């Protein structure tokens, strides 16, 4: 980056908040080093930086906690990393309204601990909450097991403040829980991976903290039995907050197996009033009588088990080679896992699977193939194919560059791409926001 330009950037935020040279090593992305990383301390500074970038045609990569920065195609241009970590305040929390407004750079854990001190929580539980920022969670549509009952960002975000590509400040939605005035812009920024604007503030719906919260882990001999158990649970009166499924490999990789050689386990989260939770745990026991083992976890044990499950991508194997996130119909989950497992085995690789079973989202982790990328590439292609055949879709969430060069990160987007491209052109006409990383090369 030209030094005159760098001076301008320094002039906006102060030189102590601009990194260059070797200090940039944490911001290397797919082997590329940006020209600079800048950490604005206010929304106005973000605006000034984007206005400058847009004038000069500099590519900007918004950066929260970096936990999902690797998701996406290799960037077309990596020039200015825009770190949001200094915008880390909870701005408003009105418990009586069950809403809160916070800045985009606050970490999820920091936000939750402040909300918890007043008896409430934001019902989003993606992995790496100590590092993941609110803005990043929204921009990547990150979620966790409790999405089963409490939904995802699109069900919780009611208002958003974004710095647009030209530096102007744009608000979508509002601060009230019900609102149909104008287009629902917050939906557009969720999952947009920083390609439409920089999320600097968000207002979200909250929930009261539950009195009681337990995790029921039920292991079965075969994965198929887990699928059957999911159907039983969904057809019952139970109202679990999470319905996750682990295959045998994931169960053992995470150290959650009850000895023996279970083919999989169903993890049910129950939270709410004590009486409700107790009844549900009993009912789950009755319903799932055919299991090989069942445990009820509370407190620290529960939290660490959930943490392992959320972080399955990094924890199932010491040396994961790639991670695919698939979406299929809930009833297809176990079958797709079995097929994908067989593919891995044929290629001499190991695979572990964790699913939010009742919404059909599966994280598939691949390990092995250290000598050559070829088996990994071949297996990923086959996985993609079988997901497509099932009518689903898949994102390559994590893989070495050599693999990404051979296996597309996103599926072909279909005819709606035309509208997506037009939205991108309308909102970022110069194409400076995270160019090339998103669906269809956006």
């Amino acid at each position, binding site marked *: 980056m030209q030094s005159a330009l760098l001076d301008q950037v320094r002039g906006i935020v102060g030189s102590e908040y601009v990194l260059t040279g070797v200090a940039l090593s944490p911001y290397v992305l797919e082997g590329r080093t940006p020209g600079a990383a800048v950490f604005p301390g206010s929304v106005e500074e973000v605006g000034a930086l984007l206005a400058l970038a847009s004038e000069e045609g500099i590519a900007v990569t918004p950066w929260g906690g970096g936990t999902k920065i690797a998701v996406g195609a290799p960037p077309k241009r990596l020039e200015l990393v825009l770190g949001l970590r200094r915008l880390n305040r909870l701005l408003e929390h*009105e*418990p*009586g*309204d069950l809403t809160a407004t916070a800045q985009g750079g606050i970490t999820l854990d920091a936000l939750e601990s402040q909300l918890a001190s007043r008896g409430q929580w934001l019902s989003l539980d993606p992995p790496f909450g100590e590092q993941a920022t609110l803005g990043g969670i929204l921009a990547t549509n990150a979620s966790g097991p409790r999405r089963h009952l409490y*939904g995802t960002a*699109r069900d919780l975000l009611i208002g958003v403040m974004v710095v647009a590509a030209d530096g*102007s*400040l*744009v*608000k*979508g939605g*509002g*601060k*009230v*829980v*019900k609102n*149909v*005035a*104008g*287009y*629902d*812009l917050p*939906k*557009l920024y*969720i*999952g*947009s991976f920083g390609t439409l604007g920089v999320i600097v503030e968000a207002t979200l719906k909250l*929930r*009261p903290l539950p009195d009681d919260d337990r995790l029921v882990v039920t292991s079965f001999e075969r994965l198929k039995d887990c699928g059957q158990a999911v*159907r039983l649970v*969904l057809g019952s009166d139970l*109202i679990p907050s999470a319905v996750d499924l682990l295959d045998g490999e994931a169960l053992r990789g995470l150290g959650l197996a009850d000895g023996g050689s279970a083919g999989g386990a169903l993890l049910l989260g129950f939270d*709410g*009033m004590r*009486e*409700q939770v107790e*009844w*549900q745990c009993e009912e789950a026991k009755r319903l799932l009588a055919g299991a090989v083992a069942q445990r009820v976890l509370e407190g620290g044990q529960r939290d660490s088990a959930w943490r392992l499950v959320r972080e399955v991508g990094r924890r199932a194997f010491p040396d994961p080679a790639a991670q695919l*996130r698939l*979406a299929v*119909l*809930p009833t297809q989950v176990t079958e797709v896992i079995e097929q994908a497992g067989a593919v891995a085995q044929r290629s001499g690789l190991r695979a572990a699977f964790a699913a939010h079973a009742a*919404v*059909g989202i599966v994280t598939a982790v691949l390990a092995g193939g250290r000598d050559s990328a070829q088996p990994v590439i071949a297996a990923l292609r086959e996985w993609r194919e079988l997901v497509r055949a099932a*009518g689903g*879709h898949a*994102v390559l969430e994590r893989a070495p560059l050599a693999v990404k060069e051979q296996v597309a990160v996103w599926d072909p*987007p279909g*005819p*709606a*791409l035309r*509208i*997506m491209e*037009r*939205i991108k052109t*309308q*909102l970022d006409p110069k194409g400076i926001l995270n160019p090339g990383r998103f*669906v*269809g090369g*956006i």
Partner: protein
Amino acid sequence: MATLTESRKQSLRRALEAIVGKSAVLSDREELMVYESDGLTLFRALADFVAFPTSTEQVSALVKLASQEGLPFVARGAGTGLSGGCLPSEGGLVIALSRMTRILEVDYDNHLAVVEPGLVNLHLSWAVGPRGFYYAPDPSSQQACTIGGNIANNSGGPHTLKYGVTTNHVLGLEVVLPDGEVVWLGAKTREPQGYDLTGIFVGSEGTFGIATKIVVRLLRKPQAVKTVLAVFDEINRASEAVSAIIARGLVPAALEMIDQVTIQAVEDAFGCGYPRDAAAALLIELDGLAAGMEAQAAGVVAACMEAGAREVRTAKDEAERQLLWKGRKSAFGSYGRVSPAYMVMDGVIPRTKLPYVLRRVNEIVAAHGLRVGNVFHAGDGNLHPNILYDPRRPGEEARVVQAGAEILKVCAEVGGSISGEHGIGLEKMDYMPFIFSPADLATMHRVKEAFNPRGLCNPGKIFPTKKSCVEVGPGYRPHPIEEKGLAQRF
């Protein structure tokens, strides 16, 4: 619109007939007049044609024709909208979806259904009810309004406090874009890739294209339901009770408020057993697991008593529950007994601001020499002040509109919104700047450009425009479904 010459009109009619058949096109003035308004009868606009397609292909062919001919077009569901959304504000073609009413697929295992847009909301819950399922968004007009219209307006209802509004229940859409191309946005599976076009389409008030298939989530009916009526001598105490319930960590399925004007109207008209001298009543419904239900109900009762309720009743059985709801549900019909006409407002506020805003609403309406009845979704802070008036008195309707604008201004000032469920349509275009900056509006406009670059699809809505040939008031009429007693207006 008077700008079509007779010969062009003839040739357009023939082209439309070639797509949908002779019996599915209207062009006579008398027939068109049925389609000149929606539930907000203050506005009227006459189409040149109304066509009734029966398939996606026909909708696509109609839209392609309109697009080639430069003819404005607008989708119409049941016409129960309350902001003038489906009016042909620049003339042209109304594409009426009332013949596309099929339930195409129900997948009970995956808790979803695929339906056509003209399907009446309640008919879906009826169809899946025997298997223990229902479709959660429940606008009070659900016996008449269509799922397509619900999508366009992102409609809500009493139970959206706990279960969310329409957008929270839509997974995917087949859409005819404004140039006639058919695309899928979203899917039956979660997390479709790319921008959330389903999310932005829902609530776009028919300006992004026409939904021709809709994938919705189905929910299982709750194991237990408990309904409570709390009666207050002061409206402020009722408002405080709303906050007190939330503060106890309880999330009711519904939390509705009914004020004195409304209670008296209801009692005069139907006699549902609400105390006539009460200043306000709260209707609170809990649902979910049977376990813990008694304790939750006790929590609600305690919160209301602590806030100063005079009396709290709990429905002992389904018959009593229905009776408690009857008062709430017949509120609209009862206004007709005490006033020649009324206009329903729709604004949202943070629920902690209820006491202040309700006082301001009463002051504003009184200052205009009018009366107001409030019956609304207190749990989500979604107000519905119903201003009572007489359209035959000169100038009164204009004062109602003025009072409405002032009320919305107050909603905006306390950090709220100018619409919680009825949409902007024609009614509130000029109020958008109450809550949105020019940059916010410009962004929305750019998104519209992406979907609807030529602006032929439902023109003249949401954003202020000069081109419109809409006629404004006077002329309140109850919507036909209200006259038949099928619905209430909130």
